[in-house]
Every structure is written in C-alpha cells, then in structure tokens.
C-alpha cells in the first residue's frame, strides 16, 4: 500500500481500489456481498454513489444498512438493520438461485484470464503439501446465479495466475459460450477491480483485458503483476482519483468498524461467561 498524492487528498492504492469497486455498484439494485473487500465496497457504495443499494449477506439478511463495516457476515447489526432476515437455505434457494440478485461481489485468492476463481487449495511445489485456502463458501452459486459478478482483489502474480491450481468457482470457463453451455443463468464476471486498475472480459474471447489503470500506474506495472500475458485494451482509461467525499466516507466507515467492544475481555483468551 503506497500512498499516492492526488490533489488535496492523499490516498492509498487500496483506497482507490475500494472507491472504484464502490463506483461499480452505482447502478446496481441488489448486491450479494462477500465479506472483506466486497463488503467494504458495497457499504461505501451505499454511503456515496448508491444510497438505495440493497445489501444481501449470505447469513440471511436482506437490505442491511450497517453504520460500520461488519467484521463478519453475521455481525448483529446486519440483522438489526435489515428489511428481512431469512434462514440460510431460503437465502440460497429462493433469493440467490431464485434469480433475485442483480450483482454478486466476490473476492478471490487466485484468478485466471477467464476470471475463474480458486479459493480452495494452492500447489506449493512438488515436495510440499497443498496450501489450504478457506474453500468455496457461497461463491460457486453466487457466480452462477447473480445477474453479473464483480470481483475485487489485489494485483500480483500470486493472485493473477496463468493456471488455477483448483477451479472453485467458474467465471467464464475457457471462453465465450462456456457459461451458456453449462446452463449458468447469470452473465458472469464483468469487471475485476484491483489496486492497479480494472480488467474486463473481452466480449469476443471472454478473456480479461486491462481497460483502466489507476493514476500513476503504468500498463507495464500491471503486466508485471499479472501471471499471464496480459492483453491491454486499445485505449486504456485512467480511473478518477477518489473525491474528498468518497475518501471521507470510506475512512469513516473503517473507523466506525473498530468500536470498543462492550464487555471486552482484558486478556484475549478470557471468556466472559
């Protein structure tokens, strides 16, 4: 995270990524929100470009309006501020599979050129055991059933890989038409937003193409951080730096995300019951 000056405000590349991810939700109506960066982006969108955005968390909350960033998808405030709370099976069956959700917002550990995702295991070399990642969570069906999918993750050759060690969640498979062949209702990933810029699938090939870079980021730097030979759009745009309002909203959300815990134990291990 290097601080980049921009007019009156200093901001980090992470902040720019988060702001861009929020902006991508400007026209969304309902968003299935993964925890971490997607949750930051979705909550920032509600505080800036899209106050009416309906946030849906897999813990069962529909229309959550948290005032601070939740640490987990099951923080109490998500339920307390929701329009409706439903059981988890209903969430996945009636709401997600039921085609009710406009945008799925996902993170990833590894992504390939077709926006396929690995969050299961990584190969650490012939003499070492597989490295364990958290697993699928809701992602395979989020990516399949939401109208569109946005992804947000940091850009490095560790994350943007030539070949996934495991396909947890299908993005565009091996090219255009693969989703359709598999009977996946949604359009799949439409943008991958990183701390260096934005990649989008080429409609002809479904391959991720660099379409925007952040201010002061060169195309060469993005190429170097990408594990495959990156295709670059004919015209590469530059994303707008965060406005002071966006930055203030983002920082306020994050500051509010670390409240004093009521009944906070003196020792980390101490249980209060």
């Amino acid at each position, binding site marked *: 995270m290097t601080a980049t000056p921009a007019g009156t405000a200093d901001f980090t590349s992470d902040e720019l990524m988060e702001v861009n991810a929020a902006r991508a939700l400007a026209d969304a109506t309902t968003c299935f929100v993964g*925890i*971490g960066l997607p949750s930051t982006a979705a909550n920032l969108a509600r505080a800036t470009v899209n106050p009416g955005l309906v946030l849906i968390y*897999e*813990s*069962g*909350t529909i229309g959550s309006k948290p005032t601070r960033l*939740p*640490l*987990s*998808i*099951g*923080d*109490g405030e*998500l*339920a*307390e501020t929701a329009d409706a*709370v439903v*059981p*988890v*099976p209903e*969430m*996945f*069956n009636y709401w*997600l*599979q039921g085609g009710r959700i406009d945008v799925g917002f996902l993170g990833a550990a590894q992504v390939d050129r077709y926006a*396929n995702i690995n969050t*299961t295991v990584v190969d650490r070399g012939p003499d070492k*055991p*597989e*490295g*364990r990642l*958290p*697993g*699928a*969570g*809701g*992602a*395979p*069906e989020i990516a*399949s059933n939401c109208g569109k999918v946005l992804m947000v993750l940091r850009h490095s050759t560790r994350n943007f890989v030539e070949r996934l060690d*495991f*396909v*947890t*969640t*299908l993005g565009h498979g091996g090219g255009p038409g693969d*989703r359709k062949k*598999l*009977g*996946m*209702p949604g359009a799949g990933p439409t943008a991958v937003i990183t701390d260096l810029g934005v990649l989008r699938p080429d409609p002809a090939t479904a391959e991720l193409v660099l379409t925007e870079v952040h201010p002061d980021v060169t195309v060469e730097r993005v190429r170097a951080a990408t594990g495959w030979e990156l295709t670059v759009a004919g015209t590469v745009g530059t994303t707008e730096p965060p406005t002071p309002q966006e930055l203030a909203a983002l920082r306020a959300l994050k500051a509010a995300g670390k409240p004093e*815990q*009521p*009944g*906070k*134990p003196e020792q*980390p*291990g101490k*249980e*209060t*019951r």
Partner: protein
Amino acid sequence: MTPCEIKNTLVSILSIPTHGVTMADIRSLQDAVADLVHDGDTVAMEGFTHLIPYAAAHEVIRQGITDLTLVRMTPDVIYDQLIGAGLVRKLVFSWGGNPGVGSLHRFRDAIENGWPRPLELDEHSHAGMANRYVAGASKLPFAVLRGYRGSDIPTRTDTVSTVVCPFTGEELAAVAALNPDVTVIHAQQADRAGNVQMWGLTGVQKEAALAADRVLVTVEEIVEELMPRPGGIVLPTWVIDAVSVVPGGAHPSYATGYSTRDNDFYQAWDPIARDREAFARWIDAYVRDSEGALTR
C-alpha cells in the same frame, strides 16, 4: 368401574404404541454432553456466526470425546479448537476461515501437516451444505440445486452427483442428505418444558436440529413462558433431547438480546492458533482447567 378404570381399559384396547416422542430433559451440560455425544459420532454444531455453541464444544474437549466427524458450513474458531485438540477425524464444511480475520490455523495445520492428526475432508459450497441439511430435515436421501457448475469441487467428494429433471431434461446437481448423529445448537431461551426459542440470524439451525438423531440445545436462560419474538424460531421440546442452561455459552460468538460478537476475541485468536504451543496453553488455561470446567 370408575372413569379412570374405564380410561385404562380403553387405553389398552384402543391405544397405539407411541412413536418414541419424548420431552427434552433440562440438565447439566456435563451430563448432557456425556450422554448425547459419543466417540466416533457425526456431530453438527451450527450457528451462522451468531449463536455458535462454544460452551458445548469446550465440554466435548474436556471430556475428550474423539474420532468425531464434524459438520458445519463455517468451521469457525469453534472447530479450529476441536481440531487442534485432536478430536476430529473428518470435517464436512463449505468455508473454513476466521471470518474477517484470516485463516483457521489449527484447521490448516491438520490438513497441511496432519497435526495433531490427519483430517479427512468432505467439502461443499454453502448452497450445497444448506441443501444437504434441508434434505436431512426432510428425511429425503438427497436435495437438488443448480450448483457446482464448472467447479472442481465434485472431483473431491462423493456426496455431489447429478440428477436429470424428468420434465425438462435439465441436468442438476444432487447433494447427499446430512443426518448427524447429534446436532448441538445454542439458543436464547427455553421454557421449563424444554421448548426452545432463538431469534436474530437463525442460519441452518432448524434444519440441522431436525436432521439429527439427537439434539442438545444450550440456552442463555430458562423463562416461565416463551414470548413469541420477531424472527423467532421455536423448536418444540419433543424434537430436543436435552437443554442445558449456559449463559454466555456462545462466546466469542453472540446471542442477540444477550451479548454482542466479541470481534476482538476472533482477532486475538489468530496469533494463538498460529502457534501449536500457544494453542495448547490456551486450551489448557481456558477450557480444560477453567473454572467453568469445574462448575459445569
């Protein structure tokens, strides 16, 4: 013949054998765990971030009940502790992280290095796991979903297959039902008859409970009467085997109306779980030899 004699005679003539439905016993956590959870059992301790039954898991650790197959959508720190304590043979799950913090290090250590013992996995997506519980509660052998498409997950499990719709010809995913030997959940309240109410995020607890052969519920308190609550789910006493009163029994998870999630604990868990010795010291200090251990 008195009415009572008549009743008894008629009962013997007309009555039908009962279907084995009994009321829940209200009893100590120690006794309930000892009676209901056995070596080698398949155990689901559910609660989607909210109402996770930590106290019951700690009692399992104290009693050293082992060779367990643990089932949970999100193993969370509760299963990190049971896995690190060496009690778990197999894990059935869909997302194994410390929510908002990072890895579950005991879970990773068991899978990557077989410490303290190898851990077999049966791994799914959330949609798949939720539907496996639904099938279990419905006493169906499987459930259908439009899922796992294009994913490598089915290559690593024998509990995902396919079925073809007899009306449209569409091929869909089939997942095998989950029917745990025991389901353990935490709820806010029980009445004296053992009826239980929980509210807030209720996750898959109803399904997990109704899918199981035996059900143990820890509660914040016993109340004279369960007052219906918005978002409340009531499990009648006759689907529950035992209720144990354990105030704070979901900590560091929480119970809406009684406590808030101890996010600091989840963050503090990371360095403890990273280190095998720090983990062992923590389990000894806060679970095996804790005051709570003696009074329960």
